[in-house]
């Protein structure tokens, strides 16, 4: 019996495995503890940096280190809703200026593509009305009459009181003039003059009305 007990204790694999599991789980716990401490130390450091950055940033504003400091701030400081909105607006600004450049250099195919992408991604940007209007113009300049009318409809639907809706309606009048519907075009110009208080829109509509050949 004694020999059996001795042999069991010495050679039982279950005990060996249990001991190994115990040792491995201790090691795992140790590693988890160390990770938690490093994470906490890093977070503490981040808090320190975030605390000191506001005093440092104004002095670095126009220097070469300014950008680096702002990058650090974007990582260390709490990502507030205001910041996220601001960064979205900056991205929208960049994307819109790219599309505008293509339009200004009369690369209408490219501007159409970029504006459609801008509208898809930043539909709620402050540049959205202008982007829609430039899309109308890009399509018109490429002779895509049907698509232009569809885009104008969208502008009027989305921004009815905005001056871009007025400009788009003037563009609609021009299309009608091109299609020989001078009477309808004149009605549109008159409606624009009555509905849009913006001086630029009204004067353009008046000039267009004066130029209609019945």
């Amino acid at each position, binding site marked *: 019996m004694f020999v059996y007990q001795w042999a069991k204790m010495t050679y039982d694999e279950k005990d060996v495995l249990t001991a190994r599991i115990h040792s491995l789980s201790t090691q795992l*716990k140790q590693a988890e503890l160390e990770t*938690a401490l490093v994470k906490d130390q890093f977070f503490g450091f981040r808090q320190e940096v975030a605390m000191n950055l*506001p005093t440092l940033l104004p002095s670095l504003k126009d220097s070469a280190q300014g950008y680096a400091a702002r990058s650090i*701030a974007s990582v*260390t*400081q*709490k990502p507030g809703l205001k910041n996220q909105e601001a960064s979205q607006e900056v991205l929208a600004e960049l994307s819109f200026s790219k599309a505008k450049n293509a339009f200004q250099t009369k690369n209408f195919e490219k501007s159409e593509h970029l504006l459609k992408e801008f509208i898809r991604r930043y539909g709620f940007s402050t540049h959205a009305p202008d982007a829609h209007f430039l899309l109308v113009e890009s399509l018109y300049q490429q002779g895509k009459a049907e698509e232009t009318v569809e885009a104008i409809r969208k502008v009027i*639907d989305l921004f009815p*009181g905005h001056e871009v809706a007025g400009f788009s309606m003037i563009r609609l009048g021009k299309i009608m003039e091109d299609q020989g519907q001078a009477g309808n075009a004149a009605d*549109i110009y008159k409606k624009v003059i009555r509905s849009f208080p913006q001086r630029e829109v009204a004067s353009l509509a008046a000039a267009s009305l004066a130029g209609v050949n019945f």
Partner: protein
Amino acid sequence: MKTRRLLKIFLLFLAFSVEIHVKALDLALSPGCTKDSLGKSKECFAMNGLSPGQQKINDLNVFYQSRSVFSVSGSLIKWVQGEGAVQAPKGVEIETTFGSALCEKDCVGAFEKKEDRLEFHALKGKWQVLSFAQKNRQPLLEGSSLALFQVGEKGLSDWGIARSLSSSELKHLFSKVFLNALSSRERAEITTSWKKAVSALSGLYQSQAQRAVASRKASEEREKARQLREEREDRALREMFRRKNLLD
């Protein structure tokens, strides 16, 4: 008869020793630290396993949930991770990377460190909370809670608004965090001060809510009027647009 009684006492002692042994094993310590150094050096951290636990360290009764990481030195607790609580008759300071909480005498408090904030519950005693980078301590009513957030763009960390605990939160603290270890007298004291905090803070919230409702109503009315005006204008424009485009 006497032998049986002795045997019973011996068995009880054995069971108690096994329990203590298991609990002691469940704490992993940072390298170079022994069980004895816990409570003496703030660099000796302990991490709990999966089951909640409790340790009497110095004059503090520390309660910790699973995977909690902390160190204790004198009356200072550095809380790194997880949910925990403390009972401190002689006062305590709890330090975290979001801020700290201090109480001088006869204190009971609970706290949870989350990814983005520290939730602190003052249950008994005169607690004061200081968030990271702030200079003035914020006193907390017994029975109320406060959240401390990450440092923001002004270089200061945000405070939440002090709120009273809900009854389910209090129940959770008593049973799950304090592991039903608080005496019934202490539980009654905490419940009484919690009730006081509920009524004090609800008065504050009521006036805040009334102001918010009034301003919301006014802005809703303005918005409704604007929408009606715009709808009228839009309808006229769209009708005209459809007519001219022969879309209908």
